[in-house]
């Protein structure tokens, strides 16, 4: 399911980033690699979300949240 369908406080596993090479590489280097665990720290209707990945907090804009496929941990 897309990341945008998850709830606050859930822990999910990243399956795929369906986006261009550039953005994908950038997210990979920040630790968003296939199979990594993500915790949804903050979500909002219109604004960005905050996820915890590899002990650090990342803000992700709406556009990206729709492009990340995850599955429940």
């Amino acid at each position, binding site marked *: 399911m897309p990341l945008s369908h998850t709830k606050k406080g859930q822990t999910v596993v990243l399956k795929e980033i369906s986006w261009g090479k550039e953005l994908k590489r950038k997210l*990979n*280097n920040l630790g968003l690699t296939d199979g990594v665990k993500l915790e949804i720290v903050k979500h909002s209707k219109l604004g960005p979300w905050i996820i915890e990945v590899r002990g650090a*907090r990342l*803000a992700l*804009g709406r*556009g990206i949240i729709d492009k990340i496929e995850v599955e429940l941990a």
Partner: protein
Amino acid sequence: MSTIRVALAGNPNCGKTTLFNAYTGAKHYVGNWAGVTVEKKSGEYRYGDYTIEVIDLPGTYSLSPNSLEEKIARDFIMSDAVDVVINIVDASALERNLYLTTQIIETGTPMVVALNMMDEVEKTGGTIDIDGLSERLAVDFVPIVAVKKRGLEEVMERVIALAEGKVAYRPVAPVYSKKVEDAIEKLQMQLPQRKDALRVIDGDESFILTHNIKMDGLQNITEAVTKERYDSVEIITRNHFFIKNRNFHKLSDAVDTLMLNPVFGIPMFILVMLGVFKLTFDLGNIGLDYIDVFFSDYLSVWVSEAFITMGVAEWMRALVVDGIIGGVGGVLTFVPNIAIMFIAISFLEDSGYMARVAFIMDKYLRRVGLNGKAFIPMILGFGCNVPAIMATRTLDNEKDRLLTILINPFMSCGARLPVYVLFAGAFFPGNETLIMGSLYFLGIVIALLAAFVLRKTILKAGESHFVMEIPPYRLPSVKSLLIHVWERVKGYVYKAGTVIFAASVILWFVMNFNFSGMVEMNESFGASIGGVIGYFLTPLGFGSWQAGLSLLTGLVAKEVVVSNMAIAFGFAEDITAAGFYQNMSGFFTPIAAYAFLVFVLLYTPCVAVIGAIKKETNSWKWTGFSVVYQLAIAWFVAMLVYQVGTFIWG
């Protein structure tokens, strides 16, 4: 006596700048990396018989070149210019930080890891098995607390031991899956060294071009390497990092429930900014009074008397006292205000609040086609637009960058502050903070509107993406704040002594002479030039030649607008709010005064900013465009303010 060259590498927000300042103090050199506009800082640290040259690399999450900063970091670490790398690791986000550590291991350049923020880890009941980590990677991990200067010497001891070759450096690099190792092996037929093969796999474009490498079938390998590197780091972290209290970010989260709240986030931000203005105003004005008294009551008088006793010509006395002391002093008077402003902004930046502002503003910036990150250079613009325009480099794509550069000058910089301080004090006593706040706010609104229009017309682009780390809140190091402010204030004072000094002299001549020699001011060259400009400013409510000429000189530096106003209206010896009101209320209605401030806020920036725009856009076309469109917007908005205001309040 020997010299060792050390590079500081680390993630953004890991305390790298604090460590750099702890080592080098205020005596460091700021330049640019060869051929690019990224700031290069270096300084010296003495340790025993050694002089250690410390070079601060840009903060990066990886060495895979996603940006100019990463490329610079990688190129420098892999060049012969470095003896040892100090890798600063934020212990509280160990896993993500160790990724860069692993990449540095793979470059083969000797490294010592400075494990920062250990105190934070310990506070939350976490422990890190430092010896185990050092052993596992065969690299020295030294715990430090950069803010308290703890562990600095221990780190340097290890650095010297490595540089001297007293200890061998044989770190343990990750071993990859068969698929990846085969690719590395294949590349090693062209590039014998494993580190170079990995450089290709990590996607170092320019390196690939130089060595003419065939990249067929390597795309998936890049992704695989990143994943496997992170996986190995994950295992290492799990084995050596023990968290008792799962929630590391408890305190930050509590603060963020308010700061990042969809309803209260924006009012909180406005409150914070109003607090900054109030500090700037109240604290700054205490210093301002002292400096002002020094220039106008002591220095001017003393120089005047000295000249009279020595029998110096009257025109010379007038030039020195009215022109130079008036002009330079009028600018230096505001050093306290500007210093406070810079301290406040650095504090917001170093504490982690700036990232939150980007977060709450993202929603709104999306509507004008930018993302939250673009807001950070905008806030930095409140200090000075030059570093703010340079800070747009953190944005991911060129169109976003260009757009953010073009709207940046609408953010009111510190140099415009003196104009507001005096005018607000003179025409709106008691409401200074409100008047100032309204101008800063108007600047933001105009910037966003301009972004919206530019995005819809000449800078169309797809969606821009917001990805950003939200670091935990931290108390900034006092030393770093002071050093940062000192650098900026130094620049400001230097400007007062050079550019503004020269401008004051030229202006004095322009205002006291015409072709027939020395004349009354209203018959001078300056009055004629200012008169032409004033003609165009009449619909804005300030059509006097004095206003026209002062605004023209503002292109040299905005802070001279007020001192030149005072010189042009003939009260240079009394640059105070009261003096302003007394001498200028005949020329400005309060509405016209406000329109004037709006014009000063929005019109063409100073030459330093124009230079920065040229440097960063690398295009005369865009530079010219920015100059013209700002002037047009300033004229139009100030005209609206004056006409509508006069219509309503008469």
